[in-house]
């Protein structure tokens, strides 16, 4: 066990009822409070299965998942685990349950039995955090995809969770919507120390994480900083993934002999390096 781990996953295996294939095999990892971690992997690699274990939507067939030392297998822990682990899913249209934005945000705390005055305070604060205050009384169906996802995040914040789990929450959004959601999440991490688990198919999104976990065929095949993981180009390819485009460009330039840093992984970092080299 890692001291102070918020999420502790130990030797977890999982097989769906009636399925031939094993969905997850012998996964162990821990996530610390305040960390941003990304989980990447090919379609069918087990990412979403793992994600659903984090708030006891699925219970491991083998091994254990604990959230702040609460075992997800114990029925008595369920409500508290689900309050602490907030999930945002892929489809913005499937997550809002009421017709008015602020009612939707209040839905969670209401179910938790929070007193009405306190709900009001939480709803206002949560909408402010995701910069949706001016939409409080608007109809939720009329929002854009990015706005819907931010309202979904506000609904979780109103339950005062310890961790936000985003299961491909940007997959169906346009570039602006994606950026809205990502910057909201980054801000929550920076300003409130919110722990974030991001499952994504966009390797560029994983660059912002403190650590990246790579799943393939139900196995955890790599973990490390984005730099460590995205430098393993062959292993990524073998896992049906690829390095972000700027990492690939950087490597091509390095191979051609340009004296740029091995550290550059983003557009801005690469532009800094190139302007140094090309001006010289």
């Amino acid at each position, binding site marked *: 066990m890692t001291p102070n781990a918020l999420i502790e996953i130990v030797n977890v295996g999982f097989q769906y009822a009636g399925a031939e294939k094993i969905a997850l095999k012998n996964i162990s990892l821990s996530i610390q409070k305040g960390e941003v971690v990304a989980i990447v992997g*090919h379609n069918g690699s087990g990412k979403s299965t793992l994600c659903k274990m984090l708030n006891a939507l699925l219970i491991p067939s083998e091994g254990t998942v604990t959230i702040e030392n609460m075992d997800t297998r114990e029925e008595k822990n369920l409500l508290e685990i689900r309050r602490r682990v907030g999930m945002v899913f892929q489809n913005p249209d499937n997550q809002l349950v009421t017709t008015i934005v602020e009612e939707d945000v209040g839905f969670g705390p209401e179910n938790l039995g929070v007193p009405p005055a306190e709900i009001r305070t939480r709803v206002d604060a949560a909408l402010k955090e995701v910069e949706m205050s001016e939409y409080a009384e608007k109809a939720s169906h009329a929002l854009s995809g990015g706005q819907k996802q931010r309202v979904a995040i506000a609904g979780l914040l109103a339950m005062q969770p310890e961790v936000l789990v985003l299961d491909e929450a940007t997959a169906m959004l346009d*570039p602006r919507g994606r950026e809205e959601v990502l910057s909201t999440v980054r801000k929550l991490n920076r300003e409130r120390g919110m722990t974030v688990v991001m499952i994504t198919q966009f390797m560029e999104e994983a660059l912002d994480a403190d650590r990246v976990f790579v799943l393939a065929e139900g196995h955890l095949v790599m973990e490390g900083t984005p730099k460590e993981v995205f430098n393993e180009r062959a292993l990524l390819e073998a896992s049906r993934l690829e390095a972000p485009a700027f990492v690939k460009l950087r490597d091509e330039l390095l191979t051609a002999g340009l004296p740029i840093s091995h550290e550059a992984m983003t557009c801005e970092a690469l532009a800094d390096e190139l302007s140094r080299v090309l001006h010289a």
Partner: protein
Amino acid sequence: MPIEIKQLSHTYLPGSQLAYPALCDISLTIEDGEFLGIIGHTGSGKSTLIQHLNGLLLPTDGSVLVDGLDTREKKLRKRIRSLVGMVFQYPEYQLFEETVARDVAFGPKNMGLDEAEIKVRVNEALVLVGLDPAEFSEKSPFELSGGEKRRAALAGILAMRPKYLVLDEPMAGLDPRGRREILALIESLRRDFGTGIVMVSHSMDDVAMFADRIAVLDKGALFMVDKPETVFSHSAELIDMGLNLPQATQLVRALRMRGIAMEHDYFRMEELAQDLIGRWHHDR
């Protein structure tokens, strides 16, 4: 013959208080065998536009002619729909049959083809999308992986041998290799069969890769339609519309901001790499 969109306007719920003008005076010709990319942020009218291409929506004003056939003519609609194959977002949600082969056969069956021809088409389509008929025909669509389901759904459209293929975000939600495979498949349909491709995507890199021309929609109007290099040279306007740029173009911009004179607005990474490498050798 092409698809001609002439002064097309579309208003949802016309005449009511909720009337919403979604498209305004769009004129555009999609040439035979062309690969046209369509970009625009959510609500710009992309989905409304493509639903006009096979008569799912009809013009409020103007017209859409597919190989000269007017979509407003009800009796032509069946022919139009066999010419224009439409692949919606997450098409795998529409798989419904007990086996992959029966699902793929659904379209050809509705076209009234005979059993033998249907069988040929189903096999052909499965091979095209890279699903071995011997292995996949008798499987339930629900046993397939995400990427395989997407391809099975695409096979169902290809089995109708459409002359034009219209795809709405065909790569959404797929892993990087899955994205590349679908994109390569789409490009091969154009190359090998001359299928005209109309592809809507939020990924500028994917659109930039193969499109001959790109149509940019903004608030229901056609902002421009032109070759990728011309479209992406309007980077400031695209950013204002809530779009982003291909990653190569982003780097070109970042370099210019640092005082490096970049002559071209590259949109393909390989070409940018060659320029940078050449420049570095030259500087030395």
